């Protein structure tokens, strides 16, 4: 199979608009959690979230008009706008602007979302109920469909290769990058714009995720303490929003044009728990098999892994993942660093796996493991370094990024520092 490398990244995260600003704030211990003020939350059990910093576009703020005309934004839910922004950034970062027929047809798009335009669907429902079907906008459907992130990006940049999308809850972003890598490896495309996007911070989503007992509800008065993976006082995840997009490229294609290479995508594993709709199985077997498959594909063993970007949502499932990792790495536990960046940016659902894969690539680039914030009192003992509170400088050549979603859908990516043969 052909080799696949990451040659560009783009990100809209709760820590900032842009990969580098998000990364530098993450390493500095930035924490994006705050009380939600944009809509009524007093009657909701969870009143906090990690919102992207909206602003004029300066100092790392996100100014939607910079990325999509206002009249176009009105027609879509924000998950599409975030994806457009992150894709623009990633393509610019990669220096890839296909203009010939050949290059446009060799470039595809695979962007997923966990829940897509939930808020717009709610609004559309009110319109239908209160004003009748004749008042429903012709943009109601195309502005909410999850694959329209891929569609809109392809239209803007004239990318005429494979156009695809993924919907696997919180594993979406990782599956998108893994599947897109396979399309390149198998020769169906030379370049893929891949990742995940999500704009879930609205009343129905906060109410719905709280109803299935997934959200933190005990730290509403102290939001920055709420996302605390592995800590004894964790009580659920904090919802985040944003998009992460990578440019994946066939190695020789990237070398031929002198592209910078962040890392090589060497492994991808997938598995199903076949256990419960929202909870992982106690034995962590799905997670274990998923990581194992990714390492096998990479031709690596657990002893080669330096850093793991955990799924680590700050729920009870954290220790199940940790147990699966301990089973996987065995005697290598003490040389591995594993952190959950959700402690800083919350859980971006369908965008999480993509944003975290980018963080993993940057961990390799800069030889530093980002921190797990709020890890004051780990609920279990482990030999694995969970990188509490502050980033750790260390050699990182191989990183593994985990994503596990509702429905028992698991994805693991393995990235390796690119070395010329």
């Amino acid at each position, binding site marked *: 199979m052909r080799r696949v490398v990451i040659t560009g990244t783009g990100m809209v995260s709760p820590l900032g608009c842009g990969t580098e600003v998000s990364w530098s704030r993450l390493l500095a211990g930035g924490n994006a959690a705050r009380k939600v003020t944009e809509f009524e939350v007093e009657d909701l059990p969870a009143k906090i979230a990690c919102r992207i910093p909206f602003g004029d576009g300066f100092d790392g703020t996100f100014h939607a008009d910079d990325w999509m*005309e*206002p*009249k176009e934004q009105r027609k879509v839910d924000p998950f599409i706008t975030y994806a457009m922004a992150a894709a623009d950034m990633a393509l610019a970062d990669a220096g890839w602007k296909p203009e010939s027929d050949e290059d446009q047809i060799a470039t595809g798009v695979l962007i997923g979302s966990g829940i897509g335009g939930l808020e717009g669907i709610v609004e559309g429902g009110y319109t239908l109920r209160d004003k009748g079907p004749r*008042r429903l*906008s*012709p*943009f109601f459907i195309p502005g909410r469909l999850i694959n329209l992130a891929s569609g809109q990006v392809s239209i803007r940049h004239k990318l005429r290769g494979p156009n695809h999308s993924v919907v696997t809850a919180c594993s979406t972003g990782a599956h998108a990058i893994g599947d897109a890598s396979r399309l390149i490896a198998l020769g169906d495309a030379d370049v893929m714009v891949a990742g995940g996007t999500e704009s879930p911070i609205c009343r129905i989503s906060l109410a719905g995720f709280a109803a299935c007992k997934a959200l933190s509800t005990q730290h509403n008065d102290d939001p920055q303490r709420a996302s605390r993976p592995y800590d004894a006082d964790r009580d659920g995840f904090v919802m985040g929003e944003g998009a992460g997009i990578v440019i994946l490229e066939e190695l020789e294609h990237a070398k031929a044009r002198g592209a910078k290479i962040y890392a090589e995508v060497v492994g991808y594993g997938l598995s199903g728990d076949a256990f419960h709709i929202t909870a992982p199985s106690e034995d962590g077997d799905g997670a274990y098999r998923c990581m194992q498959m990714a390492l096998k594909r990479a031709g690596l063993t657990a002893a080669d892994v330096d850093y793991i970007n955990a799924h680590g949502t700050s729920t009870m499932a954290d220790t199940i993942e940790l147990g699966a990792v301990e089973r996987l790495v065995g005697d290598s536990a003490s040389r591995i660093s594993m952190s959950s960046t959700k402690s800083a940016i919350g859980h971006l659902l369908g965008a999480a796996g993509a944003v975290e894969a980018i963080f993993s690539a940057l961990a390799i680039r800069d030889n530093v493991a980002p921190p797990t914030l709020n890890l004051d009192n780990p609920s279990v003992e482990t030999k694995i370094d969970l990188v509490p509170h502050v980033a750790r400088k260390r050699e990182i050549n191989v990183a593994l990024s985990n994503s596990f979603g509702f429905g028992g859908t698991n994805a693991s990516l393995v990235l390796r520092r690119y070395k010329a043969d």
Partner: protein
Amino acid sequence: MSDIAERVKKIVIDHLGVDAEKVSEGASFIDDLGADSLDTVELVMAFEEEFGVEIPDDAADSILTVGDAVKFIEKAQA
């Protein structure tokens, strides 16, 4: 310009994000103002809402310019 024409013009400017000077009586939504077929459906809905008139689909198909819209609404309200 009549009051109706002014209000039509404002809707067109808001929905299509075009400069006011481009929105002349004879301007075609699709050929001159960059609308696509879905934009024109939304425009017709906005006219219905603003003026409290019903524009049936066959009539909507014949509203191609700013002037067409103004004429239809004036007639519907007469």
